[in-house]
């Protein structure tokens, strides 16, 4: 129970840490809005609506996505990304300050068990990963505490065992009592050195943390250009024995096959449920039970049954789309206006003709809505299934990269997955407009 409350505390403190950033982001949005309004007023175009409506607040029809806001939003994302990763794509004054790199210096005072004190200097060379300067110290200095020279990686807090070369070491009972003349307590508060911070740990060691700056490390978030570089590199050379197109193609193939199988079975199933009380009664419990089960929860079972090959994934996607398509087709059939069916019968149509010429076309808008949802779910499910086990695929790419901490590949994969998901949805919407232009206009 205690552990639970600790976790809750952790979540709340993470939220509290994020709060200033969220506030800053909202402030940026509001600032740009104010600027835009001001600019419009300046150029004589008041906040008037194109249809000359005076009531726009609360009128859903008057709300149109502002293209300018969308452009600024995307630009802001890239700017923030570039600025906080120190990207070369933005001018240097826009980059967030990086971690301290250079030479620092601090002096510590050690106290021997007999009460004698001595001061020694530590020269700290702070360098980025990969740089190894010559850090041999000169003369060790006078007294029992000897001078040190250490190398610390930029942005990394490091324990520095300055007493190891002293004549009276920590093992002999000597303690560090001050840094740069300021008294220090083990486990006590730290001291600002100007180029970083230092504190004495509970066990008496110096912990030196050079200023980490404001930038994200590439491990957490690589700059845009390195993601782009990865994209080019993988597009040309492939990743893990398969080209980028094979990875993406495998994912798409799985989605399309699974979705089509689900539609081929699900749509007639939905029609049967919509047209016959017996079928509705038979399948309602199954469909209503399976619908709320997220397809991701079926992954382990599918792997046990069908293995990690293509069959398993396609079975999974088939199951993901089957219920959605069945329910969509069922509601499409149930939604047919009785007067249309009556009209068809009194125009001499047979049952089969009513089905083919009235019920099926009438259900198409619902079927298309279902297909859009199913494609979205399938795309999400395939990525998740590939994260679990696959030899190719967009999800496998980012999972494998994460194991090697290749964050740039992970981000590239996420962007590609997002772009493809969006493209699929746009394609479905286009198909909807072309094939069921009467949707929502009955």
């Amino acid at each position, binding site marked *: 129970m205690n552990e639970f409350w600790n976790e809750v505390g952790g979540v709340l403190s993470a939220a509290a840490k994020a709060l200033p950033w969220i506030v800053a982001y909202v402030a940026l949005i509001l600032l740009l809005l104010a600027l835009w309004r001001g600019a419009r007023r300046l150029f004589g175009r008041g906040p008037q609506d194109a249809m000359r409506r005076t009531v726009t607040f609360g009128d859903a029809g008057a709300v149109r996505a502002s293209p300018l806001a969308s452009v600024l939003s995307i630009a802001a994302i890239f700017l923030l990304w570039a600025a906080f990763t120190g990207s070369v794509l933005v001018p240097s004054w826009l980059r967030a300050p990086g971690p301290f790199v250079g030479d620092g210096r601090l002096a510590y005072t050690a106290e021997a068990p007999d009460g004698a004190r001595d001061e020694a200097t530590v020269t700290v060379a702070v360098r980025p990963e990969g740089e190894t300067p010559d850090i041999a110290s000169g003369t060790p200095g006078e007294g029992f505490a000897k001078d040190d020279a250490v190398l610390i990686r930029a942005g990394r807090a490091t324990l520095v065992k300055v007493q190891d070369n002293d004549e009276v070491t920590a093992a002999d009972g000597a303690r560090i009592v001050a840094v740069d003349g300021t008294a220090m307590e083990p486990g006590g508060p730290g001291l600002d050195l100007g180029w970083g911070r230092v504190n004495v740990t509970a066990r008496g060691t110096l912990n030196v943390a050079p200023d980490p700056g404001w930038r994200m490390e590439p491990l957490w978030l690589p700059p845009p250009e390195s993601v782009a570089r990865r994209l080019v590199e993988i597009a040309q050379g492939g990743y893990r024995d398969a080209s980028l197109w094979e990875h993406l193609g495998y994912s798409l193939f799985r989605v399309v096959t699974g979705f089509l199988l689900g539609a081929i079975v699900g749509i007639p199933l939905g029609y049967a449920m919509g047209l016959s009380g017996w079928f509705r009664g038979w399948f309602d419990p199954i469909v209503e039970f399976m619908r709320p089960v997220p397809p991701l929860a079926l992954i382990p079972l599918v792997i046990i049954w069908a293995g990690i090959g293509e069959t398993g994934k396609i079975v999974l996607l088939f199951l993901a789309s089957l219920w959605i398509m069945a329910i969509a087709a069922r509601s499409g059939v149930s939604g047919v*206006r009785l*007067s*249309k069916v009556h*009209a068809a019968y*009194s125009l*001499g149509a*047979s049952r089969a003709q009513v089905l083919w010429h*009235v019920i099926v076309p*009438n259900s198409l808008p619902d079927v298309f809505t279902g297909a859009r949802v199913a494609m979205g779910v399938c795309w999400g499910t395939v990525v998740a299934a590939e994260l679990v086990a696959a030899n190719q695929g967009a999800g496998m790419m980012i999972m494998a990269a994460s194991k090697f901490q290749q964050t740039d590949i992970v981000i590239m994969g996420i962007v590609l997955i997002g772009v493809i998901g969006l493209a699929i949805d746009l394609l479905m919407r286009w198909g909807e407009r072309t094939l069921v232009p009467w949707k929502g206009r009955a």
Partner: protein
Amino acid sequence: MTHLVIDGLSMRFRPPGGGTVEALRDINLSLERGELLSILGPSGCGKTTLLNIVAGFLAPSEGRVALDGREVRGPGAERGMVFQQGALFEWMSVRDNVGFGPRMKGMRARERAGVVDHLLETVGLGGFGDKAVYELSGGMQQRVALARCLANDPEVILMDEPLGALDALTREKMQGLVLKLWQETGKTIVLITHSVEEALLLGARLVVMAPRPGRVFRDERLPFAAMGAGQDLRAVKRDPDFALRREEILSMIWDMEEEIMGRAPNGAVPA
């Protein structure tokens, strides 16, 4: 020989809540070929139920409906139906909607095109054949519905408040169209309406129904449809006799409503 016979028709429902609703009681009507009958009545008098039984969508509890001696047992192409609204097929063009009946019968496309074009001209929609139905106004959609029904060349045309959802001006124009079609095609037409004026205008014969249970309250012949088919509808409406009849029927329906309300168990007088 009588054309359409409604003989001893009664209809009782058992709604899911329990009890029995007597929607129609002992309806007897017979129509000659080419008759124009309008059925008028307050809401809940069972006029739509009656029409649905004639169309074959509902089976009566007692009695029978026969067309030319054949008993009605289900919907059929010889009894065309025009609905109030929303019964057109949005996924088909105007032309395909009108040609639906002939197509179901297997008429060849070329032959069908002739029928459809002729009917579109007749209802005043020449040139609109390739439009989508949702692009048309409500009045134009009802013109399509009329043409679609006529394309099948039915013996009887049943109209369930076909002009009910139209605005007053469109409605007046459409009333003229219905009369014109009646006169030109000589079809037997049964039209349901809750507008007294429309019932007088579009009924060579008028049946007024009373509610609870639905029954025929009055059955009479009227001259106005014949007048209207020949001349301006507005002139008919200005006719003093027309105004007199309208007032008479209106007060009859008012009395009917008051009688029903008076019988209401709580005795409340509605506004």
